[in-house]
């Protein structure tokens, strides 16, 4: 049953990802990325990451991608029109990519210990409570530093995007 869910959502994920790559119009890429994120959230749930799934929805799909869509609409960005001036990245890229995948698989097989199966609900460490405990005890300093980072990002974004006074 779990694998059925996994297969369904993995399929959705992959299809959306491919769509992201092949679509020429940014907004369709954005929507497919949202699809990827939503189905990834489901996969996280299958892996027992309740909190992270919710965070995926709230932060990624709910905030970041909205920002993307917002910007795309604001710039009213159209699809790519003219041919790329240099094609070699494409021609070099595709074989490189498969090579990359192959290597990843190889490394994965080499590095990973023989792995078991994923049964839903067998890992409860991902509940909001557990995450909170760990986040505010062991990872407190990174947490605070991240908040500072976000503050800086906000300031930077405002400075960058504000209207030039002229």
């Amino acid at each position, binding site marked *: 049953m*779990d*694998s059925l869910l*996994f*297969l369904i959502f*993995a399929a959705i*994920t*992959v299809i959306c*990802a*491919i769509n*992201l*790559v092949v679509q020429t119009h*940014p907004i369709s*890429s954005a929507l497919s*990325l949202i699809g*990827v994120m939503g189905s*990834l959230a489901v*996969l*996280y749930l299958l*892996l*027992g990451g309740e*909190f*992270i799934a919710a965070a*995926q929805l709230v*932060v*990624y799909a709910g*905030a*970041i991608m909205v*920002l*993307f869509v917002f*910007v795309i609409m*604001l*710039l009213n*960005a159209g699809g790519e029109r003219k041919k*790329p001036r*240099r094609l070699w990245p*494409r021609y070099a*890229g595709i074989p490189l*990519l498969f090579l990359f*995948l192959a290597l*990843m*698989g190889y490394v*994965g097989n080499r590095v990973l210990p023989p*792995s*078991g199966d*994923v049964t839903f609900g067998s890992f409860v*460490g*991902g509940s909001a409570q557990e*995450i909170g405990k*760990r*986040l505010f005890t062991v*990872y407190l300093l990174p947490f605070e530093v*991240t908040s500072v*980072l*976000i503050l800086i*990002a*906000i300031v*930077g*974004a405002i400075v*960058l*995007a504000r209207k030039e006074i002229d």
Partner: protein
Amino acid sequence: MPLPPLPFPPTPPLTWYLALSAILFALGVAGFLFRRNIITVFMSIELMLNAVNLSFITFSYKLKQNDGHIFSFFVMVVAAAEAAVGLAIILTVFKNRQTLEIDEVSSLKN
């Protein structure tokens, strides 16, 4: 009522998740390489981040400890910050050059 027997194991092996994350990452790289629209390139980066998150969470399932969740949480937060700044940069670029073609923005070459 009994279900028909499934053509695959009832519970997915861990490697499936890792393979999925590898594929997603590769697709993200592909998007980065092939797309010429800055925003799409940016989104491919986000895709790669998601792929990494997936493997993080898979490993933390494997190791039965939630550090991986924490990491991916941080990744998300940093991604949020990055998106804010990056999109602001894109806005500025567009304001100055009226283009989103990534190859147009190459005044630093040679």
